[in-house]
Every structure is written in C-alpha cells, then in structure tokens.
C-alpha cells in the first residue's frame, strides 16, 4: 500500500522541456488483451461451426452475427455517447422492411435493397435524433421508445406497403454478382459482414471520436469547454448506429426470407439493450459476449416467461454489474495494474517559472473583451454591467466575495451562459451569441473550480482528446506531450484521472487547456486547495503561460497569490466591478479594503 511511485521529474530546475514525451502506455493489461482474445475466440468458433454440419447451430450463429452488428452500433450511441436507445429494434426492422419492400414489390437486386435500407434508416435516425439529442438524456430514450411504438403501428396499419399482420413473404436471398448465396456461402457472407462491421466500429471507437464520445457522455460542459459540440457528437454516434442497424436489417431480411411485424416490436429494442448491458456498455468487445449470452437466455427461458426474463435481467444486471462483463474485467485489470504501478499518487508537479518577470508591453494586444455584461438568474443579477479586458501575455485577476458573479463572468466570456446585454469580443470578433464550443475552437481555454476531467480515462486520454478536438492546428500528439510537460504531469500520463488527488488534477486540467494552444485562458479558482510546493508550482505555471503570450483571466480567492501573479486586478461585488488597477493600487483602495480585503 505504501509503495510510492518512482517519480522522475522530466525537467528538473528548468521549464517545459518539449522533447519529453509521455512514453508508451503499459504494454499489456488484462483489459487490453481481452478485446483481441474475445474477438479471435468468437470469430474462430463461428468459422468452425459449419464443420459440424448442424443447421440449427449455423442459423443461430448467423442470427448472433446480425444482432452483433446492431448491438455494436447501439454500443456506440448508448454505451460510448451515453444516449440510451430502446428504438434500435425498430431501426433494425425498418432496414429489414425497406430492403424487403424494394426487393419484392419493386424487384430490385439485393444491393439496391441494402443501400436503400441504409439510407432510409439513416434518414429516420436523423429525423429522430436532431430534435431530441439537443435535450437531456431522457428525451432521447423516450423518443426512441415513441419511435418503436409508432413503427409498430405503421407496420400493422400501412397494409398496402408492409403487408400488415401478414408481413412480407418471399424475400429474395442475398445475391452478389448475379449469384444467390445459400447455405455455407450465405453463412460466410454473414459472418464476414459482422467481422467487417465490427472492425469498422473498433476503428472509429479507438480513434479520437471514441474519446470524444466518452467525454461528452461524462460531462457536456467540460466537452464544450474543449471545443466539442455535444449534440453534434451524439448525432454522429446515433447516425453511425442507425447505419449499422439498417445494414443488419437488410441482410436479416434476405436471411430470414419472411418478415413479420411482431418481430420488431418494443421487446426487441429492449432485448438489444440487455445484450449491450450484459457485455458491458462502452466496451469494445462487450457485444461479442452479450449477444450470444442473451440469445442463450432467450432460448433457454421456458416459453411464456421471456418477458419476465428480460424485465428481471434489466433490473438485476443493472444493479449487480452496472458496467456488464467488461466492467468486471476492468475492475480485475485495474487491481493488477494497481499492484504493478502502486496505488498512491503523491508527487506534486515541480515547476519553476521563467527566470525574470517581464513587464507587459504597452502595445500588448487585447485578446478577449467583455463590455457591459449583464446576466440575471431568477431575480438576482449575477452580472450587472461588467467590463473586463484580457491582454496577451498578461494576467488579469478578478477577486471578490463568494456569489459576487465571478464564475458567471467566466461562463459568459466562454459562452457557457449568454449575456443579456453588452458584448463579448474575441480578437475583435463579436462572440456574444456564440456557443461555448465556438469560443473554445477560436482559442479560449477554461478551467473549472472543481476539475472536470473524465474519471475513467487516463491523464493522457483526457489531454489527447482535447488536443484532437476541433480548433487548434498542428500535430495533436505533440501538443498533448508538450502540454503535459509544461504542466509537470508527464509522469502521470497513464494513470486514470480518478486515481489522482484533487490538487494534482488542477495541473492536469491546465495541461488539457494548454494542449489546445489557447490565446486566452479563463481560470476559476485554480489555487483552491493548493498549498506549499503545489501553490508555487501553480504560480510558476501561470507565469510560464504568461511569458508565452497567453492572456489569462484569473478568478481567485487567495489574495496573496493573486497579488503575486497578476498584472492587473479587478474587484467584484454583487455583480459589479467596484475597483480596477494594479495589485499595489488595489491593496490601497479604500473601497476594496472596506468591501473585501479587511483591514
């Protein structure tokens, strides 16, 4: 337990050695090895099944493969992006029906049906997602529920097209290059289809988008502060999952040959969700476990008890293993990892700032300017006509008692809240009505009173995700490495954020901001909870940023710290600026002394 980490300070006595890199991630961990192992085992087993010649097993494997494709997509939107959908049964059904209608009623070849299904389901997904993904989680879940119910009604009632209760019979089999696929050929085609879909999903999820989705899932405010648009991210995830559901539906129609409306009711949507949960939502390989397991439960449950089984599974699984099979492995893997790396992180970043503090040049450019900002919450004026200017290479501190509107000011400057009057200008451009993500993309960085990092991601993943998010140019990996070095947290790169003490997370959060090469950084009480070496490291880090020409707005309570770090100080009280000037000037200002500093 007491085995401390061996910390090698990458830049002893000097600052920001940009050549220092975070080093490779741990070569293997249980959680990392599981994915390839599970994939090889399941695909290997699937390839062996035809050797048995057992048609029942072969049908079952093909069904598993098709459901896997749907669940892999569901995992993107529900597991990674965190938007629960109970409508994927209906999307899958829509793909099947569109394909079947095109191939039977309009005599089109299979591939036309396939493309039609993919496009049609994508359009449905966008129509459903655009209005509901802007809102809280709940709306999306309920809207997909609504879609499932409406879809059932359409299948039953639009008899001219869907065949109503009778469904559609005589769907032609999959055909490629003029040849119908049957038996073993169809089997290998479907397994191959699932493998390709699985590889594509893996590719997307292991890239920067996978990280973005997890960050959007964890904390939308934090996501916007690094330039991500939560609704766009979620819509992309949903679109990808709709395409997969539509494609799988199309192949399903040509595999099963007879479509019945009750196959695609709400029940299927829930079964798919349970499959995802069983494997572990947000796990790359979870669906490979969850889908076969659930089909097994479904087939083993005595007839008539399927609804009880699904209902009970939802409750028991969610409570017992909120992160599914993959969650159990992750816990085990973390424990092994902890034994290897030691569990306690105590090393405080050791940063020494620039040797000399240069005065701010007179012609220093105004980067961010707020003028006449007003914001009311209920009856309380949080901002009541506030002006503030942040200049390049200069620290503008804002002090004032709790609740005087400092945090609201930062929110309004970034665009997390909107000023009712006045204007915010970013390098001359009026950004008053722009979103936070727009501001973040144009160079505003923001840290929070409580560090807002994704706890399950490593420090590196947190910083790298921000570096890759839209906005800054140049190699994101290099920017991320440099930012980690500047903030003195390189040695923590492969630690999970959840394992790192609060005080050190502040430095990680600053590294995340720096990886985006911001022109202005808004800091919300960065010194809160810092003492001793950590506090002086923070001072040095702010001085380094200042020396690099970053404009800094520093909201802070620690007055001695502020007086050491700031070039100019504004004092707020009840939503107004009551004083503004250099640190020495402010210290002597009678109004400030009366209102805030005390005698």
């Amino acid at each position: 337990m007491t085995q401390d980490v061996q910390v090698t300070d990458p830049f002893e006595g000097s600052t920001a050695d940009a050549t220092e890199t975070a080093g490779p991630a741990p070569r293997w961990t249980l959680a990392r090895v599981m994915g390839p192992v599970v994939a090889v085992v399941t695909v290997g087993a699937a390839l062996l099944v035809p050797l048995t010649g057992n048609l029942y097993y072969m049908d079952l494997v093909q069904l598993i493969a098709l459901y896997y494709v749907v669940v892999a997509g569901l995992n993107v939107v529900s597991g990674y992006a965190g938007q629960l959908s109970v409508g994927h049964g209906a999307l899958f059904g829509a793909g099947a029906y569109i394909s079947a209608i095109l191939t039977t009623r309009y005599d089109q070849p299979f591939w036309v049906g396939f493309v039609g299904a993919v496009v049609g389901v994508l359009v449905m997904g966008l129509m459903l997602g655009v209005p509901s993904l802007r809102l809280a989680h709940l709306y999306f879940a309920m809207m997909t529920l609504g879609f499932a119910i409406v879809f059932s009604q359409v299948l039953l009632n639009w008899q001219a097209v869907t065949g109503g209760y009778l469904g559609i019979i005589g769907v032609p089999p999959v055909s490629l290059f003029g040849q119908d696929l049957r038996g073993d050929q169809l089997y290998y085609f479907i397994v191959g289809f699932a493998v390709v879909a699985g590889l594509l999903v893996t590719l997307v999820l292991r890239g920067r988008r996978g990280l973005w989705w997890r960050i959007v899932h964890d904390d939308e405010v934090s996501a916007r502060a690094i330039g991500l648009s939560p609704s766009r991210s979620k819509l992309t995830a949903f679109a990808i999952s709709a395409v997969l559901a539509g494609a799988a539906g199309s192949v399903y129609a040509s595999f099963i040959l007879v479509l019945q409306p009750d196959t695609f009711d709400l029940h299927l949507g829930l079964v798919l969700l349970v499959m995802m949960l069983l494997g572990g939502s947000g796990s790359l390989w979870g669906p490979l476990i969850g889908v076969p397991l659930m089909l097994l439960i479904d087939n083993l449950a005595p007839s008539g008890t399927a609804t009880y089984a699904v209902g009970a599974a939802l409750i028991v699984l969610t409570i017992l293993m909120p992160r599914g099979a993959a969650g159990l492995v992750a816990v085990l893997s973390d424990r092994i990892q902890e034994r290897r790396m030691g569990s306690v992180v105590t090393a405080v970043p050791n940063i020494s700032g620039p040797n000399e503090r240069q005065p701010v040049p007179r012609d220093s450019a105004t980067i961010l300017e707020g003028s006449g900002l007003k914001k009311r919450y209920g009856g309380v004026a949080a901002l009541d006509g506030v002006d503030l200017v942040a200049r390049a290479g200069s620290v503008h501190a804002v002090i004032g008692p709790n609740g005087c509107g400092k945090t609201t000011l930062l929110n309004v400057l970034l665009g997390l809240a909107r000023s009712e009057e006045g204007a915010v200008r970013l390098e001359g451009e009026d950004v008053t009505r722009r979103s936070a993500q727009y501001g973040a993309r144009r160079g505003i960085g923001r840290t929070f009173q409580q560090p807002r990092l994704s706890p399950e991601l490593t420090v590196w993943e947190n910083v790298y995700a921000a570096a890759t998010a839209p906005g800054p140019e140049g190699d994101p990996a290099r920017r991320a490495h440099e930012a980690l070095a500047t903030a003195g947290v390189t040695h923590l790169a492969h630690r999970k954020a959840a394992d790192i003490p609060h005080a050190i997370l502040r430095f990680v959060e600053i590294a995340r901001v720096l990886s985006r090469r911001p022109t202005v950084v808004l800091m919300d009480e960065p010194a809160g909870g810092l003492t001793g070496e950590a506090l002086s490291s923070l001072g040095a880090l702010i001085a380094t940023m200042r020396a690099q020409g970053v404009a800094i707005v520093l909201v802070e309570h620690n007055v001695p710290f502020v007086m050491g770090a700031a070039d100019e100080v504004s004092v707020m009280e009840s939503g107004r600026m009551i004083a503004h000037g250099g640190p020495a000037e402010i210290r002597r200002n009678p109004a400030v002394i009366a209102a805030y500093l005390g005698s």
Partner: protein
Amino acid sequence: MTDIVNTVISGLSLGATYAFMALAFALIFSTTKVFNLAQAQFLVLGGLLAHTLLVERDWPWLLGALLILPVVAIIGFVQEVVTIRPIKVGYNWILTTLGASFLLQAGFAQMYGAEPYPVDSFVGSTAQHLGGIRFVPSQVLAGVAVLVLVTAIELFARRTRPGTAWRATAQNRDTAATLGINTRRIVTMVFLVAAAVAALGGILTAPTTYASAYGGDLISFMSFLAIAIGGMTTTMGAVIGGFLLGLLEAFSLDLIGAQFNLVMVFTVVLAFLLVRPNGLFYAGESRVV
C-alpha cells in the same frame, strides 16, 4: 361548429388520462429527477383492480377506490425501493424502471390476459347528448378530478410547511437535507402519492378507455409527450400538457383517422420540440457550473 366542439370534448376526454399520468410522472420527476418508466403500470393496475372489485365483485365505488389506492401506492413504494433507490449514478434507472414495467406488465397479462375490461363509474359512462354536443359523464368527472387534484397539490406545495419542505427537496436534495428536512421521507411520500394518483386515473378513466394489461406502454409514451409539451418540472404544466396532447390526438384522429394518428402526433411534438425544446412552461435556465 358542433363538430369542432365535439372534437374538443373528445380531445379533453382523451387528455384526462394523459393528464393523470403526466401528473404522476411530474410529481416524481420534479422531486427526484427520475422518470419512472413503470409508473403507467399503476394506472393500468388501478383500472384492472377496479374491474375486479367494482364489476366482478360488485363493490360500492367508494369502498373499491378506498382499497385500491393504498394497495397500488404500496406497490409503487416497493418498486421505488427495489428499482430506483439502489441506483446511485447516472441514468441506470431508465433500465431498472423499464425492467419493473416489463415485470408488472407480464404479471398483469398472466392474470388478466390481453383483452380490455369494462369498469363502472358512479356518474355513468354512456354518452349524453345536449343539442348536437356529445359528452360522457365519467370522462367529465375524470377531467374535473385531475384539475381539482393538481390545484390541491399546488396549494399544498405553496401554502403549507410540509409543502415548502417538499419544494426545497425538489430544488436541491442535499441542501434540503442539510437544513434538517427528512428528504428520504418526502421522496417516499411522493412515490406513494404518485402511484395513488396514477391508480385514481386508472379507476376514473377506465369506464371509457377500458382496462387492459398492455395499455401501459402507449399511455406512458403519450404522457411523456404531454410532459415534453408542458415542461418536465411543474405539475400544473404536466396536466395542461396532458390536455393539449389529448386535443392534438383528437384533431389528428379527425384529420387522418386511427391508422396513422400516432405518427402525426409524434411528428408534431418532435417539430414542437425543435422550436421550444424545454416545453411551454419552462422556468428559465440555471447556472451551469
């Protein structure tokens, strides 16, 4: 003209069911920020039990209601303890309450089958005609009852000490707890009351809608749309949203018939959400950080 009046009346009648359900949802949501997906099953259960007691056993209406409401309230409490209380993080309650809804529905289906059952109302449930205008007394009663109920709840919340404690809990549970309010007890009360409200809705609306084991999904969904229109957090908004949704459904039934009315209702609400994402009675944003 009388056509329109009749459509409005039938819309308000449909809306009474959604208003009851939306009220039950909003009570829970405003207090706990949980949307209990099993809640509609209590409306179904209220109707089914009303059939058993009032029709099959021929009990007096009041006696039946007096037994049904506490029984369903207790089931609602148990459901909360099993499927909502253990959920500590995130939106996992969507899954557990959905699971509870499935279990309850499967149970109802096993006991009652899939067919719809009639229920009596003491004011009569046959259509009355007044001039060209057609109305059903039991539905008028249901509509009036839900309005009286929501007014009483609003008055309770605003004018009494326990009501104030309840509002404090709804606003911020942790802060309320620090102020010495027994928030656990308030949440329990809310779930008991919300289940009883749903059950009363079932008893009062079943004379015209019939009680059916599988009725819950659709009512649940429609009431959610009602809340989306009215705003998630105000009980009065939920009830008004319920009536508005009923009107929307009645007019779309008139326009395009029963086959695709749901498609139309759903599309209109989606379009509405594009314009007013937070509903009609949204109280205003709160600070994000």
